[in-house]
């Protein structure tokens, strides 16, 4: 069997729920999150909070969230959107794809535990500590399509609020976004599975045979 077919076959065998479509609608309860498996494609509807490097470091160092932001059973999105104010002074998101999540690996597990986050959206996957936190607290990692800023911005129906704009700048601020049918793939689930770990191991073995 050629190597690539074996990978596709391997993933299909390993993750039988592969490419099943799952609407994931707020409230994001532990039960809904625990029901998800690696390979599930979800369409997310509800509120998400953006947070990237500056926010993670701030929370890790004991920084407090503004009182009107509650991440319990919430979704954290690794994203620095392009935003413009329209003629009525309302914020509009014009580009909103995910940023690379691995930079938040030093902070993510703690933030999932401390704040009760149910899902983290990003790209590129995260490491073992985050995977362990997903299992312990009932959280999943949702991989959005990196670079697909327009498709994903179309899913943002409203900007509810923005915080830390002054301190962190627009890309690093916390944007509270209402999204509808936002597409993402579960690549790390709450049962200890990680597509990233598996693809890395597979590609490492394939490369070793070709050196």
């Amino acid at each position, binding site marked *: 069997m050629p*190597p*690539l077919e074996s*990978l*596709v076959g391997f*993933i299909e065998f390993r993750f039988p729920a*592969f*490419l099943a479509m799952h609407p994931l609608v707020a409230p994001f309860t532990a039960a809904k999150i625990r029901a998800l498996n690696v*390979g599930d*494609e979800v369409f997310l509807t509800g509120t998400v909070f953006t947070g990237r490097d*500056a926010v993670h470091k701030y929370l890790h160092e004991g920084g407090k969230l503004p009182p009107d932001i509650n991440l319990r059973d919430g979704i954290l999105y690794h*994203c*620095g*959107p*392009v935003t*413009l104010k329209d003629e009525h002074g309302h914020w509009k998101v*014009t*580009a*909103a*794809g995910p*940023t*690379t999540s*691995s*930079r938040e690996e030093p902070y993510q597990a703690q933030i999932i535990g401390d704040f009760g986050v149910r899902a983290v959206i990003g*790209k*590129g*996957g995260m490491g073992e500590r985050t995977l362990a936190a997903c299992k312990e607290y009932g959280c999943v990692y949702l*991989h959005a*399509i*990196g*670079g*697909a*800023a*327009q*498709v994903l*911005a*179309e899913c943002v129906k409203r900007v509810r609020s923005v915080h830390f704009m002054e301190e*962190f*700048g*627009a*890309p*690093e601020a916390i944007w509270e976004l209402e999204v509808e049918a936002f*597409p993402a*793939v579960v*690549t790390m689930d709450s049962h200890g599975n990680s*597509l*990233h770990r*598996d*693809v*890395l191991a*597979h*590609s*490492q073995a*394939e*490369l070793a045979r*070709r*050196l």
Partner: protein
Amino acid sequence: MSALLESLIELIRRSSAEIPDDVNEALVRSLESEKKGTIAESAMRIIERNIELAKRKSQPICQDTGSVIFYVTCPVDYDQLTFEEITREAVKEATRKGFLRQNSVDSITGKNDGTNLGLGSPTVHFHQHRSGETEVRLVLKGGGCENVGAQYSLPHEKLHANRDLDGCRRVILDAVLQAQGRGCGPGVLGVCIGGDRATGFEFSKQQFLRMLGDRNPDPTLDALEQDILKTANELGIGPMGFGGRTTLLGVKICAANRVPASYFVSVSYMCWAFRRQGIQLDAASRIARWLY
């Protein structure tokens, strides 16, 4: 508004919102080659839809509008200082219009003043030539793919890479493996063998100015390019690192001289959102034609 300012804003707008044809063709081939019903195929479909949407709405393909890097080829008597001033004005205006994200941060204070201006932003490389033509090329390089770039110093004991072509092959493929999906694949590699730590990366990035479908005139480098492309696509990393058939869309390699003590291999990674455009200016600094 001066004609040059207008031309540069249009160059930035189009670079940010439209994928050049050569890259788009490679992406379409990649979508067709992925196995139907996989998340790799689904990812490529979303990418295809995104490209179409960005072009139609004239908005950034990716929210990370990246490092803004200009390459200017100009006649010997060209006023580079004025050009650079107008370029900065164009970047500021393009940011105000939302073609570029407020993407430039003071590294010490962490402040983002929202203008995209500062030391190194934008970067403008000038090259004089003896022709009367002025050409301006622009690359917008996102941070996700910039972060997975790598520079290797050979020999590299752990990777069994010696100072020869096989050693170069080993470290370049290691860069692909380490990147996995984090650079927003399927991507393109720009590689420089040799140079110093600064010029190595500079030359590796200049490879992104080549047409994706071109062939290296040096037969040795051409063979290495084809080999890396084929091998990388056999690793099964796939779009976004989801597993799949297309890990890279292209590989471009150049060689620069080195000092005897150093042997660097510098690998730059460009994401699928390969934003690169160019214009030739007429005598009045209007856009005479598009280069890609």
